[in-house]
């Protein structure tokens, strides 16, 4: 297994009126090429914040305070990794949606209500595949069987040749502001739309041609989620982050979307990071699982190990609180409540609710250590090492 994304001591804070919310406290997460990684935890434990910090799309008043995010695009690992937090915004824009893309929890809110589906999916191509598309169009324009009215063709040929070389040429920028001439990119948009139809059709939507002309309010929730997935998949990302992508859907639709994600994992994309609070979904679809509690990562393991042999007291409690068919006696719940992250407990944030709480748990946080078979756990039951 080779690393794809690795976060080192990631810290993210939110500066609110009530004080500084310490949403992430030194999260160390590694996602490998070719796996489906599940990130689980209660609501508000920092799952979404982790991935948003990773993509640097945290919204104000949040701020990534410290840490590193390494990205290894190449599966062979023959190139150096790239530290994302130190890159400029332009680099991140080129990365988002191209190498790493993301789908969101609420399909009803995730699409712009006043833009057509086609336009929204096309945007992905226009952001990341402009040059390639221009080259393609330029080739078509120069080929003898091109059916465009001759003067128009003569005018467009040099433009697209220029665009294929340099999409940001000042001439093109200038033309985009001149009436009539600003339509020079019609062919480009048409090509992007054609690709959008292709990608939507690939996701098992039969009438893709009509769908691209409609608006989000015309579609059902499941359909919208497929469109969101289409947007994310447009440029064949290496990593697809699904942030609670199925939580707000009907169970049947949920199953369809999960099935779709699994198929895509085999054919289209290398890795999937699935964020969810549904342990059933994790058991079904993931290879590896990370468990988060109150902004800290407790345990990471292969899915079978985690469900069969949980080590961290929080993981154990979490698994016990899931109803099973073979359940005997009352369902267990975890004593106490999730801490307020403005003033989190010192040391291990789970200690006030932990049945195995020791003196040291109140003072410092344990190191995330490997206890065999790629099973990592951060608990003083398994290590004596402290993090700080």
């Amino acid at each position, binding site marked *: 297994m080779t690393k794809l994304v690795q976060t080192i001591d990631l810290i993210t804070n939110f500066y609110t009126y009530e004080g500084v919310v310490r949403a992430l406290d030194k999260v160390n997460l590694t996602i490998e090429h070719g796996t489906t990684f599940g990130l689980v935890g209660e609501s508000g434990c920092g799952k979404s914040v982790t991935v*948003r910090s990773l*993509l640097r*799309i945290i*919204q*104000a008043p949040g701020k990534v305070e410290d840490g590193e995010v390494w990205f290894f695009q190449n599966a062979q690992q023959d190139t150096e990794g790239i530290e994302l937090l130190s890159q400029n*915004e*332009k680099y991140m*824009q*080129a*990365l*988002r*949606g*191209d190498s790493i*893309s*993301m789908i*969101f*929890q*609420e399909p009803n*809110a*995730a*699409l*712009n*209500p*006043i*833009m*057509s589906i086609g336009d929204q999916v096309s*945007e*992905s191509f226009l*952001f*990341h595949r402009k040059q390639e598309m221009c080259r393609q169009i330029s080739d078509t324009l120069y080929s003898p069987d091109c059916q465009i009215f001759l003067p128009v063709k003569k005018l467009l040929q040099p433009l697209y040749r220029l665009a294929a070389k340099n999409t940001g040429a000042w001439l093109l920028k200038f033309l985009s502001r001149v009436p009539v001439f600003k339509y020079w990119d019609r062919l480009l948009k048409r090509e992007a739309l054609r690709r959008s139809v292709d990608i939507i059709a690939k996701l098992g939507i039969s009438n893709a041609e009509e769908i691209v002309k409609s*608006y989000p*309010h015309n579609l059902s929730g499941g359909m919208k989620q497929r469109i*969101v997935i289409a*947007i*994310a998949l447009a440029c064949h990302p290496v990593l697809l982050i699904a942030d609670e992508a199925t939580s707000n859907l009907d169970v049947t639709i949920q199953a369809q979307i999960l099935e779709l994600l699994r198929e895509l994992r085999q054919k289209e994309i290398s890795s999937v990071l699935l964020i969810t609070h549904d342990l059933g979904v994790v058991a079904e679809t993931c290879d590896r699982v990370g468990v988060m509690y109150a902004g800290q990562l407790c345990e990471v393991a292969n899915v079978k190990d985690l469900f069969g042999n949980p080590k961290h007291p929080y993981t154990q409690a979490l698994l016990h609180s899931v109803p099973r068919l073979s359940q005997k006696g009352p369902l267990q719940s975890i004593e106490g409540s999730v801490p307020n992250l403005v003033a989190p407990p010192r040391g291990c944030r789970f200690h006030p609710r932990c049945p195995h709480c020791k003196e040291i748990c109140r003072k410092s946080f344990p190191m995330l250590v490997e206890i065999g078979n790629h099973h990592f756990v951060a608990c003083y039951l398994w290590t004596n090492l402290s993090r700080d």
Partner: protein
Amino acid sequence: MLPFIIRRFFFLIFVLFGVSVLIFGILMTFSPERRAAAYVTTPQQAKDIPKIIKQFGLDDPFYHQYFRWIKEVAKGNLGWSLVAARPVGEAFWRYFPVTLEMNLFAAPIVIFFGIWLGSVSGIHRDTWVDHSTRIFAIIGWSLPTFLFALILLMVFYGYFQAFSPGVLSDELTLFIIDNPDKFTPYTGMYTIDGILNGRLDIALDGLHHLVLPIITYVIVVVALNMRVMRSGIIEELSKDYVLTARAKGADNKTVNFKHARRNALLPVVTVAGQLVALSMEGSVSVEVVYNRHGIGWWLAESATQLDMPVLMCICLFMGVVFVITNLILDIMYAVIDPRIRLN
């Protein structure tokens, strides 16, 4: 689309009927003698007031008088304006172009500045740009139009002697009066008529007289537009689709302008109706202070001289403006927002 317009047409009739009953009712609180004065056109007729009351049935019950009035209006007779010393209908078309001219010039500026300042302020929330635009807006909002107009007049007319009140300089006004054959008032707006008649000096002079009114107007009115735009942008930027766009790799410009701003325009369109009402009120103050003889000036003059047919006419006019602007806004709304269907 057509059924929608037909429905709007019925709404127009309803509003006009309601407005006329309302205003007629308000004006009926006058004594018949005072209302009779409205029919007096020359001082000699003043002693005939009792006769006028009889003749026009001014002490009849409300509905009698109302229907008699409606009949007259249907014939095109809106009454006699004391202030203008001519029939109300005719006077209306004399004053209306002056008001229209000012609003035609000011509206694009108000809309453009409001949307621009509001977006800038919302996008750069809590920065010095945001704070200064907000301070500007709140001071503009607190300035009474007439007072601000007076102060501008004091400084720019009195001290700098750069601009003067009125619609046109005296020489040019005299020229137009003396040479009716050389200057045809096609529209009644000097800036446009000047160009149509090939008299650029008249057009420029008209524009010169518009500068102060438009500044007054824009600074006072722009705040509403700006504030709605600002909170719209802030709200839209916190929505999930903005995150989707960012995750797609959109740059800030695309996110702010292509995604957030288009959505934030919807509430701006909603308050545009309020903006029209505000601009009507603004016209009154501006015209009174700058002595521009438009609808607003006519209204204020008529109110002080108890010229009731004029009040009635202007209120009906406001009703028409209200319904038509709402019709236009609804259509605009449907154009921007695909979720709205007009039927």
